[in-house]
């Protein structure tokens, strides 16, 4: 990239944190041997939780269905190991609250025996509908972290006649390199998966956006895509949050997704590189999504790198596999900019987990907050063009409507503002709090409204019933009178 591009084409938004991807990104991929027991959570995606279809004590093979999808937006889960179903119960969710959620635990028999898969030689002979169906059955969800069921997006893309598939290889979060690794080691799978997705949504081209801090991935992907001119590898400037859908779409196509609209409405659909590889496996090999590449990184990790691990593996086991130098001061699921802090390591690896970070005390130090000096750094960093300082001052004062006037609803919670804030204000926390409050307010408004509607309906019903009763009484009275009159007339009609 030349000086001209640097000055005039570099995005004006975002931040440039120290990416800390290396040396972890350069360490060859390692494979975690099947753990003794895995805990496969039911709910690992956006949408409804699937319904278990196995029983405790049942023998399962690797890839066997554990729970089937329920409803329009849902995804099934499959067993990541072969062995015996040990239980269906609660396990700590990968969430800051540390609350529990349902999971199916499977004891491994260490055989790693797959179900009978039926590999497919030419997926392009299948109809797009059939590919969508198979992708859904394989439990593929967005692996970049959004975890939206991929098949639902395929159908949406077909319905809105999307012309361009954007393959997201941005991976802008510091520390993470699982997408980098999949592009370096499995570039053919990614490209093939992207072509299958194109077929499924009817797209004419695929633009693979890769941040220019991953030259090895760009080179590998270019080689893999050489035979397929419709798959175009497009390096993009390394700038957080380039991996955010809206920003990547703008960088690659110049199009802006309208507020409150979906990307498909401007003719593009975004899928992550790891998702594409999962689609390749689901369609070509018939393998459901049961394992993923996860980056294990952070100052507390002895041998940081990427690990190919079965889903449902406990974070503690992954950390033990890579070794710990010190007791981690903070555990994070995902990247440092948007990741979720974990309360402990007995939390399962889920489909959307691209990284697990174990921070040492220095990395985990929380800087002291000070007052806002209105420097405006947050406003220039915001990739959405918002004014975080104005929203924050209103949220702090409890003026949620004021914050909404500053377009709080457009905030993507990328964390740029809080990252650059010289006063170290927890801005994202303010905004998440406000969004939660607003959602609660909306729910309570809906509840009040429906209660009001019910009360009104009851009044109307009581009124109607009273009226009907009165009418019935009047009618009976009239009938009685008429009968009386008739009787009188009969009596008064003597022979």
């Amino acid at each position: 990239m030349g000086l001209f591009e640097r000055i005039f084409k570099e995005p004006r938004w975002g931040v440039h944190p120290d990416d800390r991807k290396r040396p972890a990104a350069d360490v060859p991929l390692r494979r975690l041997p099947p753990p003794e027991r895995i805990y496969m959570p039911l709910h690992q995606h956006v949408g409804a939780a699937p319904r278990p279809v196995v029983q405790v004590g049942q023998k399962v093979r690797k890839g066997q269905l554990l729970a089937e999808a329920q409803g329009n937006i849902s995804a099934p889960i499959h067993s990541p190991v072969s062995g015996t179903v040990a239980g269906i119960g609660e396990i700590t969710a990968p969430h800051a609250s540390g609350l529990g959620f349902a999971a199916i635990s499977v004891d491994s028999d260490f055989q790693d025996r797959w179900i009978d898969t039926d590999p497919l030689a030419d997926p392009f002979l299948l109809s797009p509908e059939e590919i969508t169906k198979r992708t859904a059955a394989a439990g593929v969800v967005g692996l970049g972290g959004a975890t939206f069921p991929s098949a639902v997006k395929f159908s949406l893309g077909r319905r809105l006649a999307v012309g361009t598939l954007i393959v997201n290889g941005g991976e802008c979060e510091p520390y993470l390199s699982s997408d980098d690794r999949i592009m370096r080691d499995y570039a053919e799978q990614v490209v093939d998966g992207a072509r299958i997705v194109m077929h499924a949504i009817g797209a004419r081209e695929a633009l693979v956006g890769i941040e220019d801090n991953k030259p090895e991935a760009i080179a590998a992907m270019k080689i893999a895509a050489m035979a397929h001119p419709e798959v175009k590898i497009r390096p993009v400037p390394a700038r957080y949050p380039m991996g955010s859908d809206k920003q990547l779409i703008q960088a690659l196509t110049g199009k802006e997704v309208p507020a409150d609209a979906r990307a498909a409405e401007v003719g593009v659909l975004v899928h992550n590189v790891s998702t594409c590889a999962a689609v390749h496996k689901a369609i070509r090999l018939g393998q459901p999504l049961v394992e993923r590449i996860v980056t294990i990184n952070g100052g507390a990790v002895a041998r940081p790198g990427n690990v190919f691990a079965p889903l449902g593996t406990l974070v503690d086991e992954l950390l033990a596999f890579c070794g710990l130098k010190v007791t981690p001061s903070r555990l994070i699921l995902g990247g440092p900019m948007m990741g979720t802090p974990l309360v402990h390591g007995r939390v399962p690896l889920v489909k959307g987990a691209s990284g697990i970070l174990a921070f040492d005390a220095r990395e985990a130090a929380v800087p002291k907050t000070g007052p806002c000096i209105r420097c405006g750094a947050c406003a220039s960093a915001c990739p959405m063009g918002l004014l975080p300082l104005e929203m924050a001052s209103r949220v702090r004062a409890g003026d949620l409507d004021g914050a909404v006037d500053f377009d709080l609803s457009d905030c993507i919670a990328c964390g740029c503002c809080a990252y650059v804030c010289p006063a170290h204000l927890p801005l994202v926390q303010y905004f998440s709090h406000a969004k939660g409050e607003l959602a609660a307010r909306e729910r309570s408004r809906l509840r009040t409204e429906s209660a009001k509607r019910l009360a009104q309906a009851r009044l109307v019903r009581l009124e109607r019933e009273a009226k009907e009763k009165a009418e019935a009484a009047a009618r009976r009275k009239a009938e009685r009178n008429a009968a009386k009159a008739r009787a009188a007339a009969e009596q008064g009609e003597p022979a």
Partner: protein
Amino acid sequence: MNPTSAMPVAAPHTATANSAGRIMATVMAALAPATLFAFWLFGWPAIYLWIVTIAAALLGETLCLRLAGREVAPALLDGSAVLTGWLLALSLPPWAPWWIGAFGGLFATIIGKQVFGGLGQNLFNPAMVARVALLISFPVQMTAWVAPLPISAAAAPGLLAGLHITLGGLPPAFDDIASATLLGHVKTEMSRGLGLLHILSASRVPSASLLGARAGSLGETATWLIAAGGAALMFLRIIGWQIPAAMLAGIAVPAALFHAIDPDRYLNAGTHLLSGGAMLGAFFIATDYVTSPSTPRGRLVYGTGCGVLTYVIRTWSGYPEGVAFAVLLMNSLTPIIDSTIKPRVYGRDRTGAALEPGK
């Protein structure tokens, strides 16, 4: 797992190493060359006044924090009180008596800043609030300027004589170096009905060396060093280009226009830019984060307002200099500018409506 990892912490889990203290320190470093030059130009009395003003600003800050029961050390260490005192000192007559600096410093941090709630809460620039309060309360002392007398010159007051001047006022021995600033001189002479061309060609015009050796406040003399410091701040992205550029243009454009119409009544643009607090104001005072708008377009509007008002006050009001008044007036508009001029949000047009998907 150890208990710290159970502490709920919101994302992001990494942060910039930047801090308010670091920003203030950078601004002070950018001010240092100009200040040192001015120290050399005006000698020990100026150094003493600078020290007294900053000490008073710190004292005012400390008193208020104590009264409010807040932690004193972190607030003092962020450097904002020092910077306020420093900027105020640069806007005072260099040989002003100590109590001018003391009153100003206390006024700046107590009335200008802490009564609003401390750092980040004040509506008006504290240094300029104090300067205007001083100017209105003590017009004589605030307009008693001296011609430059470099610290290396034989006639310059030494360490003790300088202290004497700061504490005891100007001794008669130095009467002959009293001088008006160029803007002040022009204002006085024009009020006597003289034309500019006549005034400027007369023999007793205050010196107005381009290099900065001229009568005026500490921050008026070292114009080029002030501008260089400001440019460094822009390069370091501490300040944007919008406010300085707009403010200087706001002064220069009307100045050039009126000078072209009637050179006998209106000073030229160059003189306006190099005189008074134009440079200090444009780079260091109007750019104060707390009291200026936070969006690029808002800053352009604000900077232009500061510049034009400065020119208007200098030219048509009773005061020869108008930067402090102009900045305060525009400070009062900052909340309105910030709530009306917002950046365009991604996916929305300027009015805030969602874009058309078909576009």
